[in-house]
């Protein structure tokens, strides 16, 4: 039945082979033109497991205010120049930056308004001081408390810095606002930058570096926009004098660099692979027609990219990076067909003799990729679709188009080669076992044990950063930036969501109260510490009024007058405090006049669509993260983002994901092999290259001090799909005693795959490199096992049954 359909289709294509060729040429041209309109996606989310918590955390980190900012770190290169020279240059640079790519430049704090702003904020003390703090104030309103405060004030007035602090002391003689100020200090120190301010500019502790923080409308995932922004900044940086260096610290740089690295890798791998393929065919086949074998997978991949793009809308760069590997796999079908037709007497019969193992081989490989559809990683779905499509196209072209264009000349180089060496290589496996068979099996067993022992040292790397293939200069610049400016690790973030700011602030307050008990007040930086909800502020104001109007105001005035004269204080020395006692008692939604509040809001509040997110920060340590996670569990409108927890969550998700996919792929490979060979022993033999290849991968990775990661595990599954093909072909050949040059074809298949994957070892991108390392080690040992170990096992184990 199958043979009938195959022959009919084969025959009809043979009759109109030139029409098919023209049609194929038209499709190829359209596909090549179509490549220009392909949109690639660099979004890391595509490669992450579909776990809500992972998505939410990654999205939050990406959308948070800080991630879109660009930082310019500028440094003096010579000790001949001073901080003033640096500031002058930064001023000029700042003035040169502007829209549309840079919407705001933050160079520091202009100190000129700072004192006024601080004093303005302190006027809101009636709204900010709670019941507990009022009790502390009450304890100070007595002779000894006032005397001690006045003594402190007197001493402060005599210090060289008194000029700047006089207004503060006059506004707060008892230091009762100190908690507000302490909270502010904590809030700002939680950022983790080690910065001083000089002439209103951010200056590093060593006074040799300055920092500019830029706001840009360019989204991190916008590759084109990022490129434009980086080019604009590099152009602007040219105005800096020679004694100043500049480092750009921005996620955009990673976007651009990753694109460049992947593009360069793809270009390099394609060039090396193409050259190697062509050279191989010309040297082995000595037939220019053999180039068609190489062209088929290339064309299949190009057509698949177009179709995938049409259906999936956008393609990930990682998936396209797999193009060379897919070409390496898919070229196998052409090799088998070509070898069979050239060696066999009739093209049609030769193709017919290998069509079944070829289709089953393709099906097992497809089954591996099909298992990726069970994954929750969107990128894997793309990979599966793209790979399966490429393989089907390549198989169809190899079976139905390629044989009609293979010209049999008088002198057949391939036939000659196979005849010359094939009698030795392709000797009948049914002969009596040879002495070296046992030796081969023993060596194989030793190799497997060694690889298994080595595999015990294997480690799994789930860090998201491994997907970042940015150039080393960018990483170095960031390390330099960290050493100059950063004194802490990134904190974990607790996020409260609400429909309105008031709603979010209400919950935020409750969280703050609980967090203080489990994490500690000093460890939890929250807006609630300085700016509570309107409801709470109203209650504070009522309490404040009641407190002072109970005669405490008069009492304090009296005490200050009585004991102030001991220190020579004038009567109106502290009048600003009494004058402003009730100034801040009008409760507004937000204190629009206070610029400090704006600053706080920008750091702690994020508006997203129709939601408000209020953030709090705490150390990213397991004990705190666990404690806060318990609190978050009681408040559905909250979640927390911890980079450490995210890493562990990712590790768990990826591990379970891979275990599931590997299980599905293993079952599918086994079932399909059983289905074809209809013999459990033969199936076991066919699986030898798979087991050998995977064990080799597990042993090789730690041997070369590499670690396993998600892409390399996926590559290991591809290795299984390839090795089972070798196994099936070898077992099929052993059983049927085929004279179709199977060993030669399998050898060429392995070589082409090794070339396709081997070129990835030249890739700079870590993901592509790990894929290359896995496939090369797996396929190499899988191939050796299929060519050497299977025949020995066959002779030792199955000779009597045959």
């Amino acid at each position, binding site marked *: 039945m199958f043979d009938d359909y195959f022959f009919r289709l084969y025959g009809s294509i043979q009759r109109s082979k030139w029409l098919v060729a023209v049609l194929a040429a038209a499709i190829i041209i359209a596909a090549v033109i179509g490549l220009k309109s392909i949109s690639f996606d660099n979004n890391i989310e595509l490669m992450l497991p579909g776990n809500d918590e992972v998505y939410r955390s990654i999205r939050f980190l990406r959308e948070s*205010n800080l991630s879109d900012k660009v930082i310019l770190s500028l440094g003096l290169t010579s000790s001949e120049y001073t901080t*003033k020279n640096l500031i002058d240059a930064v*001023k000029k640079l700042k003035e040169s930056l502007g829209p549309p790519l840079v919407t*705001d*430049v*933050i*160079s*520091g*704090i*202009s*100190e*000129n*308004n*700072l*004192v*006024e702003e*601080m004093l303005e904020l302190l006027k809101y003390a009636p709204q900010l001081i709670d019941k507990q703090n009022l009790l502390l104030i009450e304890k100070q309103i007595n002779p000894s408390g006032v005397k001690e405060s006045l*003594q*402190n004030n007197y*001493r402060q*007035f*005599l*210090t*060289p*810095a008194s*000029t*700047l*602090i*006089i*207004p*503060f*002391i006059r506004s707060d003689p008892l*230091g009762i606002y*100190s908690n507000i*100020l*302490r909270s*502010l*200090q904590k*809030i*700002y*120190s939680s*950022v983790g*930058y080690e*910065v*001083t301010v000089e*002439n*209103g500019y*951010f200056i590093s502790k060593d006074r040799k570096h300055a920092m500019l*923080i830029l*706001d840009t409308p360019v989204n991190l995932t916008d590759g084109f926009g990022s490129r434009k922004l980086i080019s604009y900044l590099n152009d602007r940086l040219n105005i800096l004098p020679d004694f100043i260096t500049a480092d750009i610290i921005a996620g955009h740089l990673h976007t651009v660099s990753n694109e460049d690295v992947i593009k360069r890798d793809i270009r390099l791998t394609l060039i090396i692979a193409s050259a190697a393929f062509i050279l191989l065919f010309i040297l082995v086949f000595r037939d220019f027609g053999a180039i068609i074998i190489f062209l088929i997978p290339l064309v299949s991949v190009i057509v698949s990219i177009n179709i995938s793009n049409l259906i999936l809308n956008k393609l990930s760069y990682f998936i396209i990076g797999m193009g060379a590997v897919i070409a390496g796999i898919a070229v196998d079908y052409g090799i088998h067909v070509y070898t069979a037709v050239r060696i066999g007497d009739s093209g049609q019969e030769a193709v017919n003799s290998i069509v079944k193992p070829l289709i089953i081989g393709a099906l097992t490989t497809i089954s591996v990729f099909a298992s990726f559809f069970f994954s929750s990683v969107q990128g894997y779905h793309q990979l599966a679709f793209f790979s399966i499509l490429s393989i089907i196209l390549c198989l169809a072209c190899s079976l139905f188009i390629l044989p009609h264009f293979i010209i049999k000349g008088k002198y057949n180089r391939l036939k000659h080669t196979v005849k010359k060496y094939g009698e030795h290589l392709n000797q009948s496996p049914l002969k009596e076992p040879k002495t070296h068979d046992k030796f081969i099996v023993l060596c194989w067993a030793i190799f497997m044990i060694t690889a298994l022992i080595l595999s015990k040292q294997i480690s799994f790397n789930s860090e998201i950063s491994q997907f970042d293939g940015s150039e080393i200069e960018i990483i170095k610049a960031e390390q330099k930036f960290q050493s100059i400016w950063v004194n802490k690790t990134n904190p974990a973030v607790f996020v409260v969501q609400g429909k309105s700011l008031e709603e979010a602030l209400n919950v935020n307050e409750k969280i703050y109260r609980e967090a203080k008990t489990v994490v500690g007040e000093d460890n939890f930086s929250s807006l609630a510490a300085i700016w509570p909800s309107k409801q709470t502020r109203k209650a504070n104001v009522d309490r404040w009024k009641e407190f002072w109007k109970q005669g405490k105001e008069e009492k304090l005035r009296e005490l200050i007058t009585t004991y102030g*004269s001991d220190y*020579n*204080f*004038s009567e109106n*020395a*502290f009048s600003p405090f009494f004058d402003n006692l009730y100034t801040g008692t009008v409760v507004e939604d937000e204190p629009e006049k206070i*610029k400090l509040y704006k*600053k706080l809001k*920008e*750091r702690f509040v994020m508006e997203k669509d129709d939601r408000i997110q209020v953030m709090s920060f705490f150390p990213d340590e397991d004990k705190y993260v666990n404690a806060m996670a318990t609190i978050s569990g009681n408040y559905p409108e909250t979640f927390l983002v911890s980079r450490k927890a995210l890493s562990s969550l990712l590790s768990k998700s990826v591990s379970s994901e891979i275990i599931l996919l590997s299980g599905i792929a293993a079952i599918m490979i086994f079932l399909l092999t059983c289905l074809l060979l209809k013999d459990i022993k033969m199936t076991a033999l066919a699986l030898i290259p798979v087991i050998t290849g995977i064990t080799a991968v597990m042993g090789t990775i730690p041997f070369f001090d590499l670690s396993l990661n998600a892409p390399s595990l996926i590559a290991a599954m591809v290795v299984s799909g390839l090795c089972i093909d070798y196994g099936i072909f070898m077992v099929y050949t052993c059983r049927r005693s085929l004279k179709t040059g199977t060993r030669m074809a399998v050898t060429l298949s392995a070589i082409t795959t090794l070339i396709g994957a081997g070129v990835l070892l030249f890739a700079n991108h870590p993901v592509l490199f790990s894929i290359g390392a896995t496939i090369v080690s797996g396929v190499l040992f899988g191939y050796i096992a299929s060519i050497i170990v299977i025949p020995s096992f066959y002779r030792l184990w199955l000779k009597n049954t045959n």
Partner: protein
Amino acid sequence: MQRALILLILFLFIPANYCYAETSGIKTHKNLAPDLYEVLHRLEDKTSEIRTLKTEFVQEKELAVFKKKIILKGMIFLQKPELFAWHIIEPLSYSMVIKGDILSQWDENTKKIQKISLSKNPAFQIAISQMKDWFSGKYTSMTEDYNIIILKRNPVSLKFIPKKNTIVSNVIESVTVIFRDDERYIHQIYIKEKSSNSTLLTFVNTQLNTPLEAAAWEVQPRVR
């Protein structure tokens, strides 16, 4: 401690994302009137020879918070490039020593030594850097923050008026500096604050480039 906290707060907005940037252009000594440039340059040349400074001082503070003028007496030590000491002997014992980035202070009330990092305490940093600039004679560099007027040429008397949008412009109206006859050092500094406060600092028994004893850099009680 509460005050130290206030001072710390002054730099808290370091990581904040707003900026009220200065818009004034950069002026260098090249923009100065030739005679002023000549005077500043001459003074700077003379003071640049100073390696060490040891001087007594009398500081008269007229502050609105006090009923009467307060008179402080003490010693100042300076050793370029980074040692500075300010010791008050009267009316209370107070010592402040700066070694690089670290400011140490002691007073007779608390009897405790407090150490502060200047880089983490910009209020002090600003005040100290202003003081050091005055005492070290870096006058041309001050032209960025001040407009300078020559009040008198013999002995030289200069008036420094803070430019708008500088931190000192918030609190200081003007600073008048009167030099010694030999112009090698300052005789008096008069600081007039916006809030009608004023401070007059007079230097007495000034010794230039003499070896300074190690005790100068120790925060400890001074003999009255």
